[in-house]
C-alpha cells in the first residue's frame, strides 16, 4: 500500500499539463463556460481531439489492436483528471474514448469496429447516449421507444429526453425495445443522427446551453448491421457501459481546481482571514479529497483487474458531496461570481447542480451500493 505516483506517472501528468498549457487558447475559459455540450466547446473539441490524436493521447489507453497504445489504467485516469480539471477540452468526446469505444471493443462486430474506430480515433465524431425517456429515467428498463423489426433492420419510433450533446451529435448509442415489456426485449442500435425521421430539440436549462435535448424518432430506419451485440444482450452491455461511464468523469478534479481558485480570490480580497471562511473551505477541501481517494480505489481495482464491486457507486456518492460542497461554499461566500463576475464559477455551478442527477441518480447509486456493497436485503416487491 502506498499513495504516491511513480516517476513515469508524474512525467505523464506533466506532459498532459504542458499540452494543455500549449494548446488551450487564451479565451478557453470563455469557451468552457458553456459546458461540454455547447456549440463552442463541441467545435473546439474537434480541434483539440485531433491534436490529442496527433500526440498519441486520444485513445492511447485502447489496446494496440484498436489503434491505441495500451496506456495503463492509471495513466488514462491521470489524463482524465487533468483534462476534467481544465474544463474538459475533449468536450463530449470524452464519452467516445471512455466508454463507447470500450463497449464496441467488447460487443461490436468486425464491421462496426472498422466503421467507428477510425472516426473516434481521429477525434471527428460526436456521440450521444439515447437512454432516458419521459417515463424511463432511473427506471431505464421501462423505456418505451420501439424498434420494430422490418426487412433489413428496425423501424424506430419514440422519444428520448435529457440527451446530452444530441444537438451536434453524429451518432447515437440508442436503447429501444422490440417487444412491449422486459429487459430482454431491449436492443442497442448504433444510430446515424442524420437518418431521416430524427428530430432534435434543445431544452433550455439551468445547466447551460446545448447540454440537454429531446430527441424524437419517427419511422427512423436503422439497418440490421447497426445492432450492437445480440438481441437480448442489451442489459449486459448497458451494465458494462455504465461501469465505465460512472467513474469516467473525475468531477472532483474540477471542483478542487475551483476551490483552489476561490481560496486565492478570497485571500486577495482579504476575506480568507475570516476563520469561518477557512473552516468552510477546509471542509469542502476534505470532501474533494475524500472523493479523490475513493475514486482512486476504484481505479486501483481496474488497474489490478480485481473483480468490480459496487465501490464505484459509493465513490459516486462521494463525488456528489464534493461537487455540492464546493458549489455551496462559493455561492455563500462569493455570490458575486454567480452575478456575472465569474464565468467559470457559473460553469461549475451548472455542472454541480446536475452531479446527483446525471449518469444515474444519486439514489440509484445508494440502492446499488446497499445491495451489492453492504449486502443488505432487497425491498420486497409490491403485492408480495
Amino acid at each position, binding site marked *: *500500500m*502506498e*499513495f*504516491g*505516483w511513480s516517476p513515469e*506517472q508524474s512525467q505523464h501528468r506533466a506532459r498532459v499539463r504542458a499540452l494543455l498549457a500549449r494548446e488551450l487558447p487564451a479565451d478557453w475559459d470563455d469557451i468552457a463556460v458553456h459546458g461540454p455540450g455547447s456549440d463552442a466547446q463541441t467545435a473546439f473539441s474537434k480541434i483539440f481531439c485531433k491534436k490529442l490524436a496527433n500526440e498519441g493521447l486520444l485513445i492511447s489507453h485502447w489496446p494496440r489492436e484498436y489503434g491505441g497504445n495500451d496506456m495503463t489504467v*492509471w495513466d488514462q485516469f491521470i489524463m482524465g483528471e487533468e483534462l476534467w480539471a481544465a474544463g474538459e477540452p475533449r468536450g463530449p468526446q470524452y464519452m467516445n474514448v471512455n466508454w463507447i469505444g470500450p463497449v464496441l471493443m467488447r460487443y461490436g462486430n468486425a464491421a462496426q469496429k472498422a466503421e467507428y474506430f477510425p472516426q473516434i480515433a481521429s477525434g471527428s465524431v460526436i456521440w450521444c447516449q439515447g437512454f432516458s425517456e419521459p417515463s424511463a429515467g432511473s427506471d431505464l428498463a421501462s423505456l418505451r421507444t420501439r424498434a420494430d423489426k422490418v426487412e433489413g433492420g428496425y423501424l424506430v419510433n419514440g422519444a428520448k429526453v435529457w440527451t446530452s450533446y444530441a444537438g451536434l451529435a453524429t451518432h447515437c448509442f440508442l436503447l429501444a425495445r422490440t417487444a412491449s415489456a422486459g429487459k430482454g426485449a431491449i436492443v442497442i442500435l448504433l444510430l446515424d443522427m442524420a437518418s431521416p425521421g430524427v428530430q432534435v430539440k434543445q431544452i433550455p436549462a439551468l445547466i447551460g446551453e446545448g447540454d440537454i435535448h429531446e430527441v424524437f424518432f419517427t419511422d427512423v430506419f436503422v439497418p440490421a448491421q447497426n445492432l450492437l451485440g445480440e438481441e437480448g444482450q442489451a442489459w449486459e452491455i448497458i451494465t458494462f457501459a455504465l461501469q465505465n461511464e460512472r467513474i469516467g468523469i473525475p468531477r472532483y478534479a474540477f471542483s478542487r481546481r475551483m476551490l*483552489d481558485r476561490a*481560496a*486565492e480570490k478570497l*485571500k486577495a480580497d482579504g476575506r*480568507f*482571514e475570516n*476563520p469561518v471562511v*477557512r*473552516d*468552510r*473551505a*477546509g*471542509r469542502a*477541501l*476534505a*470532501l474533494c*479529497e*475524500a*472523493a479523490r*481517494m*475513493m475514486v*482512486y*480505489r476504484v*481505479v*486501483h481495482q481496474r488497474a*489490478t483487474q480485481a473483480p468490480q464491486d459496487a465501490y464505484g457507486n*459509493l465513490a459516486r*456518492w*462521494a463525488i456528489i458531496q464534493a461537487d455540492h460542497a464546493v458549489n455551496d461554499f462559493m455561492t455563500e461566500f462569493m455570490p458575486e461570481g454567480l452575478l456575472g463576475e465569474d464565468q467559470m464559477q457559473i460553469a461549475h455551478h451548472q455542472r454541480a447542480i446536475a452531479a446527483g442527477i446525471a449518469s444515474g441518480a444519486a*439514489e440509484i447509486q*445508494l*440502492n446499488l*451500493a*446497499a445491495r451489492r*456493497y*453492504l*449486502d*443488505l*436485503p*432487497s*425491498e*420486497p416487491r409490491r403485492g408480495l
Partner: protein
Amino acid sequence: MDYDFTEDQAAILGGLEQLIGSLNIEPPKDAVFSAYSQPLDDELTAGGYLDITSQEGFGLLDGALIVEQLAQLPVSVEAATSVLIAPVFLEDTTRRPVAILAGALTKPARFLPMAKTLLADIGDDLLRIEIPEGAVEEVATLFAYPYGRLKNPENLPRVSLGSAQLPTFRRRWRIAIAVESSGLMQSALNLVLEHVKTRQQFGRPIGSFQAIQHRLVMAAELGQAVRWLGLRAAWSDSESDAAIAATFAQDAIPRFCTDLHQFCGAMGLTLEFPLHHWTYRLRALLGELGGSSAQAIAAADATWGQK
C-alpha cells in the same frame, strides 16, 4: 498508487490478528462504559508492534494499519499515541502508555489513569511529563476510553520540548484521530449491518427498508473516506493531508454515530449491546485538538496559507 497491502504489511496484520485471536477478546459482558485490555497491551509490547515505526523497512503507514486494526476491537488499548506520536518525542519509549492533551494541564485526558507519560500541547509549548503513581484521579465518563485528570500538575516535573515541536505533534495527532476513527467505524458499521439484517419489523428485516439502506450506505461512505484519507496522511505525513483526514473524520463522526444508534433502536442505548464501545470512542475523538472546525481551518491554512 497501490491500495493493496504489501507482503510485509499483510504478514504484520496477519500476525496481529493471530495475537488478538489468542486472547479471545470479547465485548465486556458486564455493563461497563469503558474496557481497557492490559493483556493486549502486554502482548503488543512484547510482540514489538508498538515499535513498528522504528524498525527498519517500516514506517508510519505500517503503524497506522496496526492502530486501525486495534481500534476495531470492542476494548481499548493505548496504541495510536505510542505508535504514531510518541516515538518523535519520547527518549524512553518504554514509558508508556502515553496520554496526550491539548490545553490546560488540569483537563481530563484519555488513558491518563494508566499512563506513564503525558505529552501536553499547552499552546505555546509542548511538555513531556512523567506521571508518578497516584498523580491521577479517574474521571467518570460515557466516553468508552479510560479518562483521568492530573491532581496537582504544578507539582510534577516537566520537560519543555519547545514550540517548534507543536506542528509535528499536532500533525501526528490528526493522523491518529483519522486512523483510529477508521477502525472504530468499521466495527461499528459491521455490528449494525448484522443487526439490521436480522432484526425483523413489519415482517421483514429492517435493513430492507430503503430509508435505512441509504443512510447505511452514507455511513459506509464516510467510513471508507476516513480510512483512505487517514492512511494517505500516514503515508505522506504532510500537514495538509493530516488536517484534511482529521477534518473529514471529526465532521463525519456525529452523523455516523447518530445514524448507527438510530438503526439499533432502544437496544443501541443499552450497555449490553456493544455498539457504544465503538461509537463512544468515536464521540471522544470528535472533540480532540479543538474539534472539526479547528482541523478544517488547519487544513485550509496548510493548503492555501492564511493570507
